[in-house]
């Protein structure tokens, strides 16, 4: 059974929400990425998103753009990220998903990419610039290797949610706002209404992401969804740290705070 499904089943039994932090693989470097993943899992992360650094991340704001640039400057390549996952898997069974732009997958070779994901132990992939209309070929390949192609919806999706989530696997990535990734003080979308609409179309776990920047916001939105995704806010903690050890400590502490905020005893 896919680690993602197992995780959500376990959490459902305990009536708990999932915490999904995001880090860019290779920022500051791939060895630190291994430590970050392990530390965040220890601190309560349920699933971890690993960003494959890309030169033109169109769906990302400045924080993740800069994170990607740092990783690329440091020489991160798809094959080395795959090796990093292998290293992680020696010590952890935490569910892992890639956040990857389509050209990276396309140029690498769709089948080669997915096959390697399966081989090293990546459970799912999120492709922010590949809409459902362009997913036929890659879905066939993903199904063949048991890697989940995570469906993604936005507040503007409306009736598209039905076909996007049909036969969907893993969870639904629900983009919280019309916007790009980034730390926000508040989210103007009516999240309750939005999450209600999504649950009308699918029973899949709904993960809310974009803009959730602190424990207060996580606590505020946890009741409307099944998982909270935190990206730019984690990256900021890493970027602002004095050295790599501090980066790992600060990221882990931040994850622990958010996990506490979305737990049942809050």
């Amino acid at each position: 059974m896919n680690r993602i499904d197992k995780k959500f089943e376990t959490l459902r039994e305990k009536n708990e929400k999932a915490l999904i932090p995001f880090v860019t693989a290779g920022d500051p470097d791939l060895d630190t990425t291994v430590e970050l993943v392990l530390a965040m899992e220890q601190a309560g992360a349920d699933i971890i998103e690993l960003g494959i650094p890309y030169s033109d991340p169109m769906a990302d704001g400045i924080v993740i753009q800069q994170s990607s640039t740092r990783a690329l400057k440091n020489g991160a390549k798809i094959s080395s990220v795959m090796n990093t996952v292998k290293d992680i898997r020696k010590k952890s069974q935490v569910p892992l998903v890639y956040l990857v732009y389509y050209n990276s997958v396309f140029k690498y070779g769709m089948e080669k990419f997915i096959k390697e994901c399966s081989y090293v132990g990546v459970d799912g992939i999120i492709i922010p610039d590949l809409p459902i209309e362009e997913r036929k070929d890659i879905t066939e390949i993903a199904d063949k290797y048991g890697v989940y192609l995570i469906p993604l919806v936005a507040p503007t999706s409306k009736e598209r949610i039905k076909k996007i989530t049909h036969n969907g696997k893993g969870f639904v990535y629900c983009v919280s706002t019309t916007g790009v990734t980034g730390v926000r003080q508040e989210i103007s979308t009516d999240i309750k209404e939005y999450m209600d609409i999504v649950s009308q179309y699918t029973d899949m776990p709904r993960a809310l992401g974009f803009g959730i920047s602190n424990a207060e916001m996580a606590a505020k939105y946890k009741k409307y969804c099944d998982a909270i995704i935190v990206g730019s806010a984690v990256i900021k903690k890493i970027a602002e740290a004095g050295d790599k050890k501090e980066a790992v400590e600060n990221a882990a502490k931040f994850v622990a705070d958010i996990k506490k905020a979305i737990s049942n005893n809050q």
Partner: protein
Amino acid sequence: MNGRFGKFGGQYAPETIMNVLIELETEYEKAIKDEKFIEEYKYLLKDFVGRETPLYFAKNLTEKLGGAKIYLKREDLNHTGSHKLNNALGQALLAKRMGKKRVIAETGAGQHGVATATAAAMFGMECEIFMGEEDIERQALNVVRMKMLGAKVTPVTTGTGTLKDAVNEAMRNWVENIENTFYIIGSAVGPHPYPTMVRDFQRVIGDEVKVQILEKEGRLPDYIVACVGGGSNSIGIFYPFIEDKNVKLIGVEAAGLGIDTDQHAATIAKGSLGVLHGMMTYLLQDDEGQIMPVYSISAGLDYPGIGPEHAYLMETKRAKYVPITDQEAVDGFMELCRIEGIIPAIESAHAVAEVIKLAPKLPKDQIVVVNLSGRGDKDVDTIAKVLGI
């Protein structure tokens, strides 16, 4: 509408904009069947843009080169100084029809930015233009014009600070403001329906050439030559001739310091299949799919991709794409200045440079039409510096 040209094109866009793209396609299809829309567009092309533009027989250049007859399609004579307004107006009319109050655009050389700011001023819309900081410096004249026309010019400092980064930033801004904003894309690139819309709004160039050349020469040209960045002026002049198989179509790419260096923007010469800015096309990328930084003296050709319809024309061998270096373009620029008394945009000078190579090899009874996509006032400082004038 079919969003593909063979395997090229498509809509590789974030989910947030998908419904907007679908709505855009629907509205566009309705608009082009609406007589009133077409009438208003044609009226503006004539009385505001100043069309039709002349097809000018370059007698001096023809004689000097001693080969085929050279005709210049004078898109430089349009209002705002290039072919860009043909498209910006069409899209702005569509934006108005859809009730959008704000328009945004990316710009490289600044001509599309000026055209968009012009259209926004006319229709009373808020306007923001995204321009790479590198381009802001080398096309300063256009930056001033945009501001005077009431647009906000936002410098883009990420990546290489040129056209592709401006497109990225415009896309991000569009996603953030999707409800009230129409993104006016300036070239034949982007997710469907943009490449088709842009081609349809630029085909007036080729349509006019066909009538004009038949009037002047009684037959169709042997060659049509145009510079290609994203490919809007070129697809505009090529499109009406695609079915005329005896008309050879030549797109001219920017070879910068040479296609064997890493300082060029010759997408067809050195690119490979991939996805950029919402479309499947040819791009300059490394073997991991990272988009390469590109270079050309011309801000408008400094783009690592090419419109999907061009990729298709190349693959089906309907059109050929050739590289011209900075040096050759500068020489072509000066040649046209001195021989014909026309200062071309440095982008268009790439097409002129190719014709300077091509025409002498052709018999005197052949006809070559060159698209002079814009005027070169914006480039005089750069060229003067290069030549020490």
